[in-house]
């Protein structure tokens, strides 16, 4: 589905990504872990074309490095940014409708389905997005991206600042998305849900991938966890 090879990216003169390579297959949940500032978010932004990438980024067999964000999105790659970015002056329903693309093929998701999955979003359908709680905003943001009917989504720190009960909901939702055949790249700092739901995971450090494995193998690898993950 997504194959990133020797990806480099710069912010001004600082060399943020120094040859990142990873891949995500169809229907797979893959986590990209690492401490703050190691380049996880930059990796995702480079794939989306928000940060100019150097190297190879292949999505569904097509080279997308250098394409504009909206072109990448229209190829079926969804992105749920870290800051959630709900449109505050639009209602929940309008936020969802903006995620949908101009009706071409039948959509895997509909507004009604989103509302039945998340009754608390349904209750607030006509409320402005700006007044939602953090958890509701995260749900809305994921749903909004799904409305575009992506084949894969990249989701940046979905559990940050959320109560444990909501974190559990987010994890269930990600499983549900994967069950429908949508690949997920989960970018996280904490191990909590990554260990529970990922099929495979990568650990980043200093702009590179420093470890690749499964949740089970990472649990065994105490040295990797203490050197690259634990604070």
């Amino acid at each position: 589905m997504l194959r990133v090879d020797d990806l480099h990216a710069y912010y001004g003169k600082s060399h943020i990504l120094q040859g990142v390579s990873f891949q995500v297959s169809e229907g797979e949940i893959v986590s990209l872990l690492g401490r703050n500032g190691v380049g996880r978010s930059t990796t995702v932004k480079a794939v989306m074309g928000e940060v100019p990438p150097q190297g190879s980024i292949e999505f569904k067999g097509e080279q997308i490095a250098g394409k504009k964000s909206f072109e990448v999105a229209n190829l079926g790659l969804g992105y749920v940014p870290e800051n959630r970015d709900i449109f505050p002056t639009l209602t929940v329903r309008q936020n969802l409708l903006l995620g949908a693309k101009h009706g071409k093929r039948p959509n895997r998701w509909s507004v009604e389905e989103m509302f039945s999955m998340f009754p608390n979003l349904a209750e607030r359908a006509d409320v402005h997005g700006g007044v939602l709680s953090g958890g509701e905003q995260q749900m809305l943001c994921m749903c909004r991206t799904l409305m575009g009917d992506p084949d894969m989504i990249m989701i940046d720190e979905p559990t940050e600042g959320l109560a444990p009960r909501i974190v559990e909901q987010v994890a269930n939702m990600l499983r549900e998305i994967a069950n429908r055949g949508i690949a997920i790249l989960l970018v996280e700092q904490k191990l909590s849900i990554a260990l529970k739901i990922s099929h495979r995971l990568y650990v980043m450090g200093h702009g590179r991938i420093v470890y690749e494995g499964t949740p089970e193998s990472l649990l065994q690898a105490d040295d990797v966890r203490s050197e690259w993950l634990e604070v």
Partner: protein
Amino acid sequence: MLEVFIFATLNGLVTGLLLFMLASGLTLIFSMMGVLNFAHASFYMLGAYVAYSISVHLGFWTGLILAPLLVGMLGALVERYALRRVHQAGHVAELVFTFGLAFLIEEAVQFFWGPDTKNYQSPDLLDFPLFTLFGQEFSAYRGFMIAISVAIFVGLYYVLTRSRVGLIIQAAITHPHTVANLGHNVPLIFMGVFGVGTALAGLAGVIAGPVLTTFPGMALVLGSIVFVIVVIGGLGSLEGAFIASLMIGLLQSYAIASDLGVPDLLSWLGLEFARDHPLNDLWTLTLPQIAPILPFLLLVLVLIFRPTGLMGNREQ
């Protein structure tokens, strides 16, 4: 007294709605670019001149439709091939660019159409009094100006708040990256908004040309007032621009229609000054005389007491 008031209100409405047609585009473009487009009123002037030239050959109604389209297309091209590049150099460069563009358009207008006033006439079809009140006529053309402006306001409001495109524009103004990540072509949307904004300015020029006269200084006359409106209304606020447009239109119209002045104030206070006093001009000042500076006076007051404008919520 009542007849003066009614006609002043109607004329104020005509001016106010016309001003709004310019201010709405300007304030939308401001929310997108983050800078005021100094050339906005120049597109208004272009609208009047292009429509005049078309009307000479094909009649007023063809000009009414074609001129805004042509001006809007020119606006879209300016955004696509000039402003978008200048944007990367920052706000100051953009500001200077639009400033230069205003001069360029003014010179171009003088070059192609000459420095004299054009005899741009309202159509014969509307050359009759719409109604007569207290023996005074209100021309059908002015009624037509009100109708078009109201239709544009309603249409614009509907598109921006109800249609999908309008929602995308609203979202793109505050969150361009997020909107792009959802698969919408944001630069294309901005080009469209710029095009529609300049087309509205052009349309204002087309319908104002026959009434406010079509001459190379018309951009300058209205341009400064439109900036005043956008600032008074609150930068980036469409509702604010609407209220401020009507306020300024009515304020000026009432001031011109009234026969009050400093002498009335003085006699009311029981004061009297000698006719040969050096400041005699000041003692005899009347409201119609100071009408042109009233918008700027209002601007200063608003900036002192409510720096964000009436409806603005400027981010700190």
